[in-house]
């Protein structure tokens, strides 16, 4: 009895392998897809990295008042007047650094007698830029108001900027990891929707369903193939990030791989599920933006979630891409380990995969006509 079961499992695995191999062979033969796989992340990284800057609300800012003079007062007033920030007063600079590294605040302003220190989170350059700008404006305002009335022209305190990760990241660098997630999501879901649609339009799906292969094995075969493809794509993006843009890579590569594989399996099942609602490739092109654009825009990949209006933010937290982007940023840029991102990111991706996998296998309709 046990022998029979082992035999059945190996037969089942062999069928899954057959489907996976076939999908990879098909992709291999499609040169345009191969090129898209390599070129897309590069183009996206360059374009989006440079093109985006947003208006922010809800940046969590810490203020450490070591010295309280008129100039410092003016800066604080300015920070408070701006509705961009939600401000927390902190006791010391070390506490500020600690909170930033834990991701609980986005930056801190330390007001000393002769110097003002900006401690910024290097992984969110746009947030860092906003903080810097507001502090500078505050200083200039203070200068205009009070400089003339000061008895001694002691000058303004110097502004020193410190990045907590010791690296002055450019926008494109921090967007890079998120773009990896976006590209995988896009590429995998779009290709699978079209792949399954083609199988349906050709007689191949029908022929395959009248064979010992069941629906779970079919979707699993696709997942196997796209895991290979997504890993290859991630490796390419990785090399571009490290060699091309000189982004320092911290964190565990295993964690990165797990995120990539989970995201790709989920996106694949999602794409297979979507293919049930389309009858032509033209419709895929129409449906795809509706489904994927909101995700990509609200995922925190292009612009930090802090810059997304509050009423839209719940959507961000529903989309799986948000968690993938967050997880990749944390691992690649902040050196987070798998344990650090287990909740909510990895958990969310596992749920995403399970739900879509169920829907995809459940929905492969036998009734095609």
């Amino acid at each position, binding site marked *: 009895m046990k022998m029979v079961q082992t035999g059945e499992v190996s037969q089942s695995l062999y069928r899954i392998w057959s489907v996976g191999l076939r999908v990879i062979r098909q992709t291999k033969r499609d040169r345009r897809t191969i090129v898209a796989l390599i070129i897309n992340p590069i183009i996206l990284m360059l374009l989006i990295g440079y093109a985006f800057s947003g208006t922010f609300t809800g940046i969590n800012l810490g203020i450490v008042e070591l010295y309280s003079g008129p100039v410092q007062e003016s800066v604080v007033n300015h920070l408070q007047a701006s509705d961009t920030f939600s401000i927390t007063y902190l006791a010391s600079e070390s506490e500020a650094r600690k909170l930033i590294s834990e991701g609980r605040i986005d930056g801190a302003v330390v007001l000393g007698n002769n110097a003002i220190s900006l401690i910024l989170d290097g992984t969110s350059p746009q947030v860092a830029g906003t903080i810097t700008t507001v502090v500078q404006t505050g200083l200039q305002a203070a200068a205009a108001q009070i400089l003339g009335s000061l008895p001694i022209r002691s000058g303004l305190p110097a502004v020193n900027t410190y990045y907590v990760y010791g690296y002055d990241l450019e926008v494109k660098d921090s967007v890079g990891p998120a773009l990896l997630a976006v590209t995988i999501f896009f590429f995998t879901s779009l290709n699978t929707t079209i792949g399954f649609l083609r199988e349906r339009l050709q007689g*191949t799906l029908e022929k395959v369903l009248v064979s*010992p292969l069941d629906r779970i094995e079919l979707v699993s075969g696709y997942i196997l193939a796209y895991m290979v493809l997504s890993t290859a794509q991630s490796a390419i993006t990785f090399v571009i990030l490290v060699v091309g843009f000189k982004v320092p890579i911290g964190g565990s590569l295993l964690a990165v791989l797990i995120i990539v594989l989970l995201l790709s399996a989920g996106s694949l099942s999602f794409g297979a599920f979507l293919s049930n609602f389309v009858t032509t490739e033209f419709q895929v092109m129409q449906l795809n933006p509706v489904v994927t654009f909101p995700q990509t825009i609200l995922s925190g990949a292009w612009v930090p979630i802090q810059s997304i209006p509050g009423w839209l933010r719940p959507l961000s937290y529903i989309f799986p891409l948000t968690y993938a982007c967050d997880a990749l940023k944390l691992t690649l840029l902040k050196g987070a380990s798998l344990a650090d991102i287990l909740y909510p990111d990895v958990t969310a991706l596992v749920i995403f995969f399970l739900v879509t996998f169920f829907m995809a296998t459940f929905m492969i309709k036998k009734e095609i006509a």
Partner: protein
Amino acid sequence: MSTPEKAPSESRGPRSSMSELTQVPERDLFAVIGRGITKSFDNLRVLQDMPVNIPRGVTYCLLGPNGSGKTTLMRVIMGLVKLESGDIYILDEPLSRINIVYPRLGYMPQQRPLYPDLTVLENLEFYAGLYGIRGQERIRRIDEVLRVVDLPETKNRITGMLSGGMYQRISLACTLINSPDLLLLDEPTVGVDPVTKQSFWGYFRELTKEGKTVVITTHIMEEAERCDMVGFMRNGRMLAESSPDKLKEFAGLKKQLRMKVADPEGKMAKLVGEGLEVRIEGDILFVDVSDTSKMMEVLDQVKPMDFKVIEPTLESAFLKLAI
């Protein structure tokens, strides 16, 4: 004239019941046997209380005009379409257990069943894989099916680049990869040149000789004529199921005598007076005769200058039944 009530008794489907088919003692002699098959799509009855009887080891043709439900019936048999009501046994297994029959089925859908961007070999390897055929056995099976369809040299060609006839032959090869006991081929000869068509019939004969059952759908008369059995469908009903000859008989078609005579009008009046069906074209009379003795009788009486016996065609049966 042709309502289902007129169908031969052997294929008339009384209301289905599970007990009826379980009681059929020779059920295992049929590759497919069904009763009361009913299916609707969006309130449109596609199959209406239909019987089907496909004996093992024959070529069986589902014949009918477009939209008569041939493809739907085929897909019902394979469990691709959920049955509304009715009872079917496939290779002696009830439809509910169709999954265990799949390894023994070979299906060639009407739409293109091959991956156009793969080579012929890759397509064959894929389908072999689905049936768990691997290693040396896979190589052997692939060679074998390619030999059956006479295309061993196409192995490394991209499937999408093949001509229509070659494509259909490779589709058939893929369908044969698991040596199925029951082949279901949906319009296998569409877009196939006459030479390939001819060879298909050769393959089918070979397969039935091995005891396999070949079911095809078609709306082409000559193809149906070549099958051992024809199931004649119209508007989702099985009008008749029998050999092509019997079907002609059932349509009430008789042999026709074509006679050139000297006095057509006079002869015609005489024959009509005897209750025969006569048609006239110039000096030629067409007379329907039920059997050989009647034919001799008419010839004796008319003494034509020249005559010819016209056998009824399945097409005329088809037209007569379809009206």
